[in-house]
């Protein structure tokens, strides 16, 4: 398995006699324990790539145990477009025997194994890799000295990697100083000692194991704006701030908590408040209270917490109260796999709650989109006076990507509540117009003050048992979604505009989907890739696109259920009644590998009558690609 963007990958060819070998991208997996600071090494590499105008994507697992336990960080960096975190690693750094045992299978044959020879004994009979023994622990202790034990071996490894891949030492040193600066001077000094020791190591011991990233093509690197590097949860938090959201409430749950931590810290600077509540129900209730004062508010959680909020979300639909709900999906049901990814809350997000509760559901496609979709969610919530759910996932929450800094001056929304006096004919729930609530504090010229309510109501908010009014109001609430659907742009479509296969993805599967498309087309299959960001309501006209392909294969990280279709596939089949909509599903708690998507497509193509005409040989190639 060769990474498509890698003309010559580390350890893949015979030792070169000249200088460093040129590469386009590399996948490095660091495996150790959670207290080893592996995440910070990954973070340094990601931010360095961002500052160097390289593309970068990371993938991280953190154990759900309180302290300790195995942990990995995988970073893919390079000079082309990086769309996924990489199927298999080009280099594995193993800190412990258990790290080696668990992750040697993720290293591609021909890859480089760097292991801490103080802790790891690789299998002697395994000759698939270039093995590099480095006494990481003792070398760090020797370099740093004093009482810090092996603390700093993560930074030693960073130095090692910097030397092997000829990374920009000046920029990395600056990053280390920024990170540790402000703390004890000794900490910065020790970090630099560890870094220098790691950087010096290869010259004596690694002989010719050196690489250099291809020079960046000026045309593609001509970004108008500097690159920023951050994770998906941060991108959502800052996106909400840019969207003028100043109030919110939440309850801690992995992997949502970091969003509320950022908002609790940041919002007071903007004159806002984020409340940590006693439970999930209080959180959604308090957020709705904020919205009622004319300040669009945010609450959020992960799957089980979203379930607890459902009754209040039913109220928000009925009372037409705007609200943003972030759901960072994890493996379920129940506590499930709290630090793993899944996309199994789609049906809950759309159809959870009691009664007919039309609500808007959006899903970001990558870290950058986490920022922009938050702004879009706020716009929709205000415009349609309705709850909007942002359905992100654990994969995006901790993934670090580099992208162009947003144009904040253009995007920033002024959050002022409209407390102006409402005219004499003000109605909170007009049947012929969108609802625009009069927040508490605003005068009503008629002297008749409105009640926002979860009871079915007439246009003035009075409770009603009228069958006719319930029907009319239900239609009003539903029509809001149809009006929104009519304004949605056509979803992103790449590859062939007609052909054998249309791969459909949503959420964090966007990148692997794009890469899978490239591979499939490389072996001659006419294929397209559609990615959906608006999941409810869906954009109009999808059936016209679907009709241009023999098979529409929907890839999602949830179970195919008793009928054989994933959650989005089920919805698309229900809406479009097209039997050629098929599923590729998995629930192993990990994001899609490109190879898994390719294999899924190959399986479906081989099952069609089409096989006879397009030939089996090509599909064999596809399956192997």
């Amino acid at each position: 398995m060769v990474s498509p963007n890698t003309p010559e990958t580390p350890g893949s060819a015979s030792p070169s006699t000249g200088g460093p070998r040129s590469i386009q991208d590399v996948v490095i997996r660091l495996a150790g324990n959670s207290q080893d600071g592996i995440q910070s090494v990954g973070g340094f590499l990601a931010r360095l790539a961002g500052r160097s105008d390289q593309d970068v994507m990371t993938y991280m697992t953190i154990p759900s145990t309180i302290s300790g336990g195995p942990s990995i960080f995988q970073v893919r960096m390079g000079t082309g477009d990086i769309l996924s975190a990489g199927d298999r690693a080009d280099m594995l750094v193993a800190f412990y025997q258990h790290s080696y045992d668990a992750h040697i299978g993720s290293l591609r044959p021909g890859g480089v194994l760097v292991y801490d020879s103080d802790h790891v004994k690789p299998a002697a009979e395994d000759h698939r890799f270039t093995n590099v023994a480095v006494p990481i622990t003792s070398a760090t202790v020797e370099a740093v000295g004093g009482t810090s034990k092996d603390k700093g071996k993560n930074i030693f490894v960073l130095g090692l990697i910097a030397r092997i891949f000829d990374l920009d030492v000046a920029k990395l040193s600056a990053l280390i100083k920024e990170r540790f600066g402000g703390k004890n001077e000794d900490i910065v000094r020790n970090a630099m000692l560890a870094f220098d020791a790691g950087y010096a190591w290869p010259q004596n011991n690694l002989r010719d194991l050196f690489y250099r990233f291809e020079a960046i093509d000026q045309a593609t690197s001509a970004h108008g704006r500097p690159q920023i590097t951050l994770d998906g949860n941060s991108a959502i938090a800052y996106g909400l701030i840019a969207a003028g959201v100043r109030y919110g409430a939440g309850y801690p749950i992995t992997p949502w908590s970091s969003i509320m931590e950022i908002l609790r810290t940041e919002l007071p600077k903007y004159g806002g408040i984020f409340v940590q509540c006693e439970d999930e129900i209080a959180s959604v209730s308090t957020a709705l209270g904020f919205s009622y004062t004319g300040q669009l508010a945010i609450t959020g959680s992960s799957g089980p917490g979203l379930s607890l909020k459902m009754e209040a979300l039913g109220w928000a639909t009925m009372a037409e109260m705007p609200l943003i709900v972030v759901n960072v999906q994890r493996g379920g049901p129940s506590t499930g796999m709290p630090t793993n990814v899944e996309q199994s809350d789609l049906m809950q997000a759309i159809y959870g709650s009691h009664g007919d509760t039309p609500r808007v559901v959006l899903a970001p496609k990558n870290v950058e989109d986490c920022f922009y979709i938050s702004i879009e969610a706020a716009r929709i919530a205000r415009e349609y006076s309705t709850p909007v759910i942002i359905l992100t996932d654990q994969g995006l929450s901790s993934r670090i990507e580099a992208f162009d800094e947003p144009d904040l001056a253009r995007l920033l929304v002024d959050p002022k509540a409209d407390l102006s006096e409402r005219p004499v004919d003000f109605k909170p729930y007009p049947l012929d117009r969108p609802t625009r609530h009069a927040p508490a504090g605003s005068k009503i010229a008629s002297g008749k003050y409105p009640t926002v309510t979860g009871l079915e109501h007439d246009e003035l908010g009075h409770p009603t048992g009228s069958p006719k009014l319930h029907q009319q109001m239900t239609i009003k609430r539903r029509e809001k979604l149809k009006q929104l659907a009519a304004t949605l742009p056509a979803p992103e479509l790449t590859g062939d505009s007609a052909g054998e296969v249309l791969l459909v993805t949503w959420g964090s599967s966007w990148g692997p989907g794009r890469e899978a498309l490239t591979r499939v087309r490389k072996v001659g299959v006419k294929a397209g890739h559609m990615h959906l960001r608006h999941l409810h309501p869906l954009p109009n006209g999808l059936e016209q696109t679907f009709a241009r392909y023999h098979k529409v294969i929907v890839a999602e990280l949830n179970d195919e259920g008793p009928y054989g279709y994933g959650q989005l596939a089920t919805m698309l089949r229900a809406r479009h009644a097209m039997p050629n909509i098929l599923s590729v599903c998995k629930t192993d708690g990990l994001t899609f590998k490109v190879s898994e998507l390719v294999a899924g497509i190959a399986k479906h193509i081989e099952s069609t009558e089409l096989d006879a005409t397009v030939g089996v040989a090509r599909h064999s190639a596809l399956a192997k690609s």
Partner: protein
Amino acid sequence: MTKKALTADHPTWCPGCGDFAVLACFYRVLEKLQYPHEKIVTFAGIGCSSRFPYFVNTHGGHFIHGRALPFAAGISLGNDDLHVFVFGGDGDGFSIGGNHLVHTARKNVRLTYVIMDNSVYGLTKKQTSPTSPVGFKSKTDPTGAIDQPINPMRTLVNSGATFVARSHATQVNHMTDMMLRAAKHDGFSVVEILSECVEFFEGAFDAAVPRKGGAWALIEEKKHDGTPEDASRHDVSDPVAAFKLASEPWPGRFGVYYENKERKTKNALERDLITKAKERTKNASDLALLQATFAKLR
């Protein structure tokens, strides 16, 4: 502002319901306070008494069962200029909303909570409530309730509510006085009003009604006047004394159990956080703040 300007829909309560008197007293309270009309909010959860906001012509809302307090906390914290009143019953407040009662008290959110306690689920037609006495026969306890009821005064004092009072729906002047003091209190103020459900628990609170042979026992508050009789009066700033007073046998006493004028409200504490954060960032504009954050992510 007059009662005429404050009345809205005609109440849906049964004839003889104690809640009518509470509503009438609340109009009197608002007439006395003369807040700007648009700055008054009446809010409620679910139950007979929670219909209250429909009967008062102010900004208001009718939320889900048991969750009016956290919603109202959002209103109070979202706009400090507002005067927020929450109404509800014993099931809404002490049972399904029990957690929120404890935490709103702990946080001392500035709002007034009036609990109309009838010791029975009325809207769902006679089931045992968290304040039903042991032995009370209901549809869910046909042979009599077996679970010990909640003691509202003890629960509230213990949770950190900063104004805790108790009244009775037959005592119009006392009720008005208690609600007025609660409204003026800067913090989380609660008045529990025993309000009879004539339909499903007739005579529940007769033990405190003199014309039905009961005893109306008022709390005498300490005046700090140095007189000998003052020694036996209740010190409303003493939570231990309040707890003891609340432990007296049924029907107990009426008046202010506890009042804490010192503790800061959550509203004030959140304002402090904002003030300090803005000092640290030198009152930078929203745009400058966000741009500075992004510059660090480069």
